[in-house]
């Protein structure tokens, strides 16, 4: 307990705290003993390939999936005993849309507000604001079915905001959307961040994670393999720049030994070769001196994608 009268309301306390958190489904260990903390006001990311255990973690935080082992506190409360109190202060965007297709856009927000036991006048007021925020004011009386994928996602986010949550958990909010719709959606998340809403986001998209997340963890096979800000992670696990080489299809790419001494790290992938160095332009110049002539070359900065490749030996995007 504290001066505010209930546990977890002091700003410096983490909103979410996990120690040795485990989730099992029968013999499958979906989450294998992870530790992390999410603080008020930050955007915290979970990155990882399919099956890494991101959704399982999100569902435990959301108090809809029982913890198999370890310690988990959300707002200082135990999900096993205080689920309704946790959920009352949470906004949830699940990986799989579960909007109510038997109701209209507006009714989706209204009924959700009622689930949180908000007074009807309060809900009405918030609906206007949230429809505006989700850019769905014109679709107010529409059923959910005919909405585009991006609109549905935005409605799900609006629905999750109806109770003015302290913490919002978004499980792959942009997966399956076209770039335009993704852009609109990430712009909305950016606004939430600026309003000080704490966000936990999972994603496959490194570029987005890099821009939005203050801190993130990379998950693989149920474990956290790295943690930090995007910049820290890149500095720690990769070089400043990368030279990407593509060779014509059917031509055997040169072996690693061909690049001896040119790069700090070399990755030969199915479709391209990556040379990690702090000055990729110079590496490029050296390349032609050695008589290596790829079909295409690209000099770019290191991204989280490269960090992921280094840590897991795999590319992230399917």
């Amino acid at each position, binding site marked *: 307990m504290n001066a505010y009268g209930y546990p977890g309301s002091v700003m410096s306390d983490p909103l979410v705290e996990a120690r040795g958190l485990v989730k099992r489904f029968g013999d499958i260990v979906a989450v294998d003993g992870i530790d992390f903390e999410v603080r008020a006001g930050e955007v915290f990311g979970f990155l990882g390939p399919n099956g890494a255990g991101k959704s399982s973690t999100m569902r435990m935080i959301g108090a809809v999936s029982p913890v198999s082992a370890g310690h988990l506190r959300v707002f200082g409360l135990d999900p096993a005993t205080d689920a309704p*109190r946790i959920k009352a202060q949470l906004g949830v965007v699940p990986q799989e849309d579960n909007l109510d297709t038997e109701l209209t856009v507006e009714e989706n927000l209204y009924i959700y507000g009622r*689930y949180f036991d908000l007074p009807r006048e309060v809900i009405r007021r918030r609906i206007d604001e949230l429809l505006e925020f989700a850019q769905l004011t014109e679709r107010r009386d529409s059923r959910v079915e005919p909405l585009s994928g991006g609109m549905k996602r935005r409605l799900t986010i609006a629905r999750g905001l109806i109770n003015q949550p302290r913490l919002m958990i978004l499980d792959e909010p942009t997966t399956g959307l076209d770039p335009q719709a993704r852009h609109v959606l990430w712009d909305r998340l950016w606004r939430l961040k600026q309003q000080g809403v704490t966000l936990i986001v999972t994603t496959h998209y490194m570029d987005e994670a890099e821009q939005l997340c203050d801190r993130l963890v990379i998950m693989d096979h149920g474990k956290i393999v790295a943690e930090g800000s995007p910049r820290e992670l890149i500095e720690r696990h990769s070089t400043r720049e990368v030279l990407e080489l593509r060779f014509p299809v059917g031509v055997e790419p040169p072996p690693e030994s061909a690049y001896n001494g040119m790069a700090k790290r070399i990755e030969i992938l199915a479709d391209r070769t990556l040379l990690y160095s702090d000055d990729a332009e110079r590496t490029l110049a050296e390349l032609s001196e050695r008589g290596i002539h790829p079909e295409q070359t690209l000099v770019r900065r290191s991204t989280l994608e490269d960090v992921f490749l280094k840590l897991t030996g795999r590319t992230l995007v399917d």
Partner: protein
Amino acid sequence: MATPAALRFFERQARVYRHTWRGSVVSTFVQPVFYLLAMGLGLGSLVDRQGGPEGLPYLVWLAPGLLAAAAMQTGAGEGAWPVMAGIRWVKFYQAALATPLTVRDVVLGHFGWVTARLGMVAVVYVGVIWAFGAVDLLSGLAAVLPAVLVGLAFAGPVTAYTAGLERETGLSSLFRFGIVPLFLFSGTFFPISQLPGWLQPLAAFTPLWHGVELTRWAALGLPTAFPPAVHVAVLVVLFASGVWLSMVRLTRRLVV
């Protein structure tokens, strides 16, 4: 003041009904009219030449049985498709469980709504029966409560059954091999004493038969096979165990 959580889920169900009531009201009216015309008047004119059951005109004897059977169908239907929609087709159960509502709230709200639906269906049915002159209004209304109970005695177990179903084909099997035979052989259309001797005790085990006994007792004052309290108890136990099992199975299904 806080609204009880189950009532908030009830509100969702009522909201959905606002979109669908027109179609539902039509079938609620049309079904009893058709049955009473075809069976009560049509078939009844043949039956009454031999003297109807219990010395009553067939239409009069049949009507409370039809009421119980309609309640069974409504109850079973409400335990089947809306529940499948909640779990799989629409997933509004999962959506509700992400909020402060618990499985218990959802289940209680669900049955609360089913009770309301059964009340509507039974009242309309009694109104139609009354319009056919087959019952006086007060006795007819006395049968509403037993009819609602019949519906719940089916809604409970059917909800629990649906809660564990992986695929919806299980629902059509339930109706084909469960609900339809009950409809035909539980004393709705003819007294079970007309069945072959070995089938009679079987018929007496079916929940619909208990319900039919009760509605005829309430509407027509006919004597029941067992004391009415026994018939009521059977139906209440069915309903209560259905509610309990629904909570257990939905928790197992949704809280993973």
